[in-house]
Every structure is written in structure tokens, then in C-alpha cells.
């Protein structure tokens, strides 16, 4: 469902994520609408998500392959990718969602779109996919930095 407000708020999130990745890891990130891009061959194996309490409850999520998570978290923590445990990756991308949501929360604090954060959670598995009811307003963006790819999704629930 097309929803201009959700699209605008999603822009805040992807911009915030791009900025975090630029500052903490030195990546230049480009973002495109999932529907406007070719089907990706990326098979997400790790995902972090957070529910946002607001006038409309919303879920935001980041999904990527383990190798992408390892590179990002390695840059963020200064620990070599091969030395990161699975728990480090789960914690790291959940923290990424936390940072991103915290920044957008501040930006929207005095607007009708203000929201409360909840605890982020991570899921690991093969070929992860988030599925929403089709009628729900939702946004999907592919964020790319070199060969790395992250899927950002946001939906009212």
C-alpha cells in the first residue's frame, strides 16, 4: 500500500542508517526501492527488528547475510570479522537498529509521528523473510555498499 507518510519516515531511517554506516564503518551507501530494483540474489540469514509504539504501531527491520553483518560489526567494534561470535553479530545488528531508531525517535519527537522504542530482537536462520498482511502500509529499501546489501523494511502493524 502506498503511504506517503510512511515513505517519508522510512527515508529518515535509511538516511540515519547510511549516516551510521558512513561514520562508524566508512561505507558509502545507496538506497533503492525494493520494487524498483531487480530481484536480489541475497539470501538474508540474520535479521534484527524493533517494534515502535506510536499513533500507529510500526515494525522496522534490517536483514542481511552473515558475512555482511560480520563486516559491519567488525568496523563498528574494531574486532576482526573472523573473531566475532554469532552472539556478537546478533547483538551488533540489534544495536544498529537501536541506534537508527533512537536517532529517528529524536527527529520525530515533537511531531504527530513520535514513538516509543521497544527492545530490538534478532533472528538467525536460512533465507529469512518478513511477511506482512498485504493490506498493511509497508516500505522496503535495498541499501547497498559495494557488494554488501541490506534490506530495510518498515510496516504499520
Amino acid at each position, binding site marked *: 500500500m502506498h503511504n506517503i507518510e510512511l515513505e517519508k519516515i522510512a527515508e529518515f531511517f535509511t538516511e540515519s542508517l547510511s549516516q551510521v554506516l558512513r561514520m562508524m564503518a566508512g561505507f558509502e551507501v545507496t538506497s533503492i526501492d525494493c520494487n524498483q530494483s531487480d530481484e536480489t540474489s541475497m539470501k538474508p540469514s540474520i535479521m534484527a*527488528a524493533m*517494534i515502535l*509504539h506510536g499513533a500507529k*504501531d510500526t*515494525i522496522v527491520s534490517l536483514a542481511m547475510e552473515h558475512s555482511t553483518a560480520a563486516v559491519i560489526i567488525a568496523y563498528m567494534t574494531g574486532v576482526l570479522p573472523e573473531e566475532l561470535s*554469532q*552472539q556478537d553479530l*546478533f*547483538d551488533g545488528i*540489534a*544495536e544498529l537498529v537501536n541506534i537508527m531508531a533512537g536517532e529517528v525517535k529524536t527527529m520525530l519527537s515533537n511531531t504527530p509521528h513520535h514513538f*516509543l*522504542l*521497544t*527492545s*530490538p*530482537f*534478532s*533472528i*538467525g*536462520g*536460512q533465507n*529469512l523473510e*518478513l*511477511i506482512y498482511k498485504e493490506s498493511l502500509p509497508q516500505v522496503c529499501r535495498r541499501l547497498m555498499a559495494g557488494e554488501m546489501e541490506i534490506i530495510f523494511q518498515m510496516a504499520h*502493524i
Partner: protein
Amino acid sequence: MDRELYGPFVTSVIDIIKEMTDVEIEGMDSMVEEPGEIPSLGISSIITFAGGKKGRLLMDMEPTLALHMANTILGEQFHDVKDHMVLSAVAEINNIVSGNAITLINNRLSMNLRLAPPVVFAGKDAIISIPKLSSQTAWGNTVHGRIRINVAWEGSVG
């Protein structure tokens, strides 16, 4: 305080599942600290709450139990645990279980907690991780498969 924040979820999951599906949960007598990653039994639903304190309930079960409960509630025969109706049924059970527990907690402790809609996912060998939160798990057995609930609260409880 500790018991008042965790106990209502155990009571609620036993009572609501019995009431809605006539399935008896046995063995859910105690809760144990859950360290780090939680390997899913097959189908899981997470519901978060915020207000006076932030927390979340993870309800995790074997696919056979999820299918039985969905078939009973919806009066149809589903065979695929990833069927949208099965996932919705599990999410709805979690919603009712959490709503019931949160109402009890709000009434007793005036915490003004509010639920977010549940998120449900299914998959083999999925691992769930909630960083920086200590959590308590209660395991239960039914004739249709195992179930567990995992409750976590942010900050100190006690």
C-alpha cells in the same frame, strides 16, 4: 515483584490455551534464566510491551502444536505451518495471552503497560536473540508438542 512480573504470563498461557483449544499444558511449574540465544522450536511469536517498563513475551512451540491449535480455533484442517491462517492464529493466541497477563500486571502494579501487535515467524533451526535483556523461560509439554514462553524485562526486576 519478580513473581508478579513473570508469573502472570505462565498462568495466562496455561489458561488461555486450555480455554481456546482445550489443550492441557503440563510441566510449566517453574521459570529458569535463559542465557543468550534461543533456538526456536519451529514457530515463534514475539510481542513487545512498553509503558512503565519495557519487555517482551516470546511464545515458541513445535509446529505440530501450532497446527493443532490453529485447526481447533479455525475449524479447518491446515497442514502447512507457514499457512497465513496458522501464523495468524498463533499471533492471536500470543496477543490474547499477553493482553491477559498485562492487564493483571497493570491492575496490580499500575505500570500502564501497552502491547504492540505480535510478530510471528516460522522456520527450521531459527535462532532468536534479544540483546541486553535477561529473560526467564518456562517449558511446557502437551500431547501435541512442546511449548515454551520466554519473558524479558528491561532494567532490574526485583
